[in-house]
């Protein structure tokens, strides 16, 4: 039996979609027995959602007012205190998991396995390095807890329909007050979430202005797609930073990715490697994006994107 603890990411109300993918990864370990821990001020809603994920054995909750916001120096000691009973502690490769899990690992005195793409054995995993230009098989040491983040783009969400037991847990942990959450500024959007959308339309530097980036939104809205961008487009202020796709942005795996006015730099491509179909629209036929695109259209985006938007209308 392999006891696995997964740390739930949530916003107080909803469980993050990455957690069902962590469960899928954990389920591929032989003899997996999976618990999910929900740390929150009030854990009820989130715990109920976690209990529905197929493969989850128990959902544990720790409710404390300090757990209202995801501050790793507050959550870390609680997770570390629970970790004793587990062979594995997993979190998602989202900014939440990337911030928290190394903290937990250090408290346990181990290194973290970052971005598991596949489980090869009880202690061996594949993970990407060098912006995904190399895949390394790593072996975690025997005899200590394995702390890891799961590369969520590599996994399909585990199914629902379960009804795992939910029970409170309690741990002794000193929680520091040196880090205070002030607030979150989030672009409100009715569009599908970039990290879970089935289709994503993304724009690059070629859009040229915030106003013209509107072409991307129009096409996306027609398709019911999420919106992504390159670092160049974000840096130029055409769109918010949470749309950045790539090595240092979001790693996504939609069924369809439409790259518009994007050159295809390695740092960008690493974020879309697992997309089902990649479509590229670029006026330069030599652009590297065409080397990975399933369907390419060499054209000026300002001509063809409006045309595509209306063609999809009918």
């Amino acid at each position, binding site marked *: 039996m392999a006891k696995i603890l997964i740390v739930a990411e949530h916003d107080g109300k909803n469980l993050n979609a990455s957690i069902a993918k962590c469960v899928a990864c954990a389920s591929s370990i032989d003899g997996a027995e999976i618990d999910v821990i929900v740390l929150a001020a009030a854990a009820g809603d989130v715990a109920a959602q976690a209990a529905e994920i197929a493969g989850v054995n128990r959902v544990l909750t720790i409710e404390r007012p300090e757990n209202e916001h995801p501050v*790793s*120096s507050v959550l870390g000691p609680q997770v570390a205190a629970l970790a004793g009973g587990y062979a594995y502690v997993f979190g998602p490769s989202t*900014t*939440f998991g*990337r*911030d928290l*899990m*190394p*903290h*937990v*690992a*250090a*408290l346990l*005195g181990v*290194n*973290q396995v*970052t971005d598991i793409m596949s489980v090869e054995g009880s202690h061996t995993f594949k993970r*990407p390095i*060098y*912006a*995904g*230009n*190399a*895949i*390394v*098989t*790593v072996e975690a*040491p025997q005899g*200590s807890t394995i702390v890891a983040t799961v590369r969520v783009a590599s996994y399909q969400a585990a199914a629902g329909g379960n009804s795992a037991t939910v029970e409170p847990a309690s741990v002794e942990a000193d929680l*520091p007050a*040196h*880090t*205070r*959450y*002030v*607030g*979150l*500024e*989030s*672009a409100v959007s009715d569009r599908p979430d970039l990290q879970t959308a089935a*289709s994503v339309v993304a724009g690059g530097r070629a859009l040229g202005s915030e106003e013209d980036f509107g072409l991307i939104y129009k096409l996306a809205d027609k398709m019911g797609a999420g919106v992504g961008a390159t670092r160049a487009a974000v*840096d130029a202020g055409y769109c918010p*930073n*949470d749309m950045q796709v790539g*090595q*240092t942005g*979001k790693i996504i795996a939609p069924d*369809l990715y439409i790259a518009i006015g994007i050159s295809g730099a390695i*740092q960008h491509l690493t974020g879309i*490697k697992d997309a089902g*179909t990649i*479509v590229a629209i670029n006026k330069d036929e030599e652009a590297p994006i065409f*080397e990975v*695109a399933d*369907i*390419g*259209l060499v054209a000026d985006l300002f001509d*063809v994107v409006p045309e*595509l938007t209306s063609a*999809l209308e009918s």
Partner: protein
Amino acid sequence: MDKILVGLKRVVDYNVRVQVKSDGSGVETDGVKMSINPFDEIALEEALRIKERGDANEVVAVSIGTADSQQQLRTGLAMGADRAILVTVDEAPDPLSVARIFLSLAEKENAGLVMLGKQAIDGDNSQVAQMLGALWGRPQATFASGVTLDGDTARVIREVDAGLETVEVDLPAVISVDLRLNEPRYVKLPDIMKAKKKPLDEVALADLGIEAGPPIKELSFAPPEGRQRGIIVEDVAGLVTALKDKGLA
């Protein structure tokens, strides 16, 4: 605040398309251009700006590596760091050991801030800053795209999946920086000459009395599964047809 420590890791330059060796034993690094990890350059730039505003007295650049890393430290000194420390190691240390080294230096130097990159673009681990926060028992403000100091606290804007999060942390603290924090300065020739005279101390890992963490062994390397070049369509109608063929439109 007295001192800011900045990590400068020597990595394969971000423009290099890294190749896996044909025997799968590693990636080809012979004769490849090496640079400061791009995030670390941003960390150093921010530390220098903090000092230039009068909020810190000294900026100390730290690298852990072989003698080759002197090159990156000299660049850091030319950018404006006051002095540099090279912790010499025979083998690339694991992230936990790197964090323990920074802990030891932070305590010895009585640092007010340790500024690191959000990730090193070779290992892509993104662990060191968070581990240091845990080991030091001090705040970790990761993925920073804005830093404002106010006495003994810092306000940090963090780039998180949901948008921009603001936290307030007490100093001393660890900050890991994201790309949009600033635009690092260019090094001018006279600065390179001046940097030659700045102190660069070497200390051996063994002398810091640090125990290596249980390392995660790298067994074998492989190139990623490549994507194939697909079809080129002539026009929008062709694109729509191709999408329909795949059931995507």
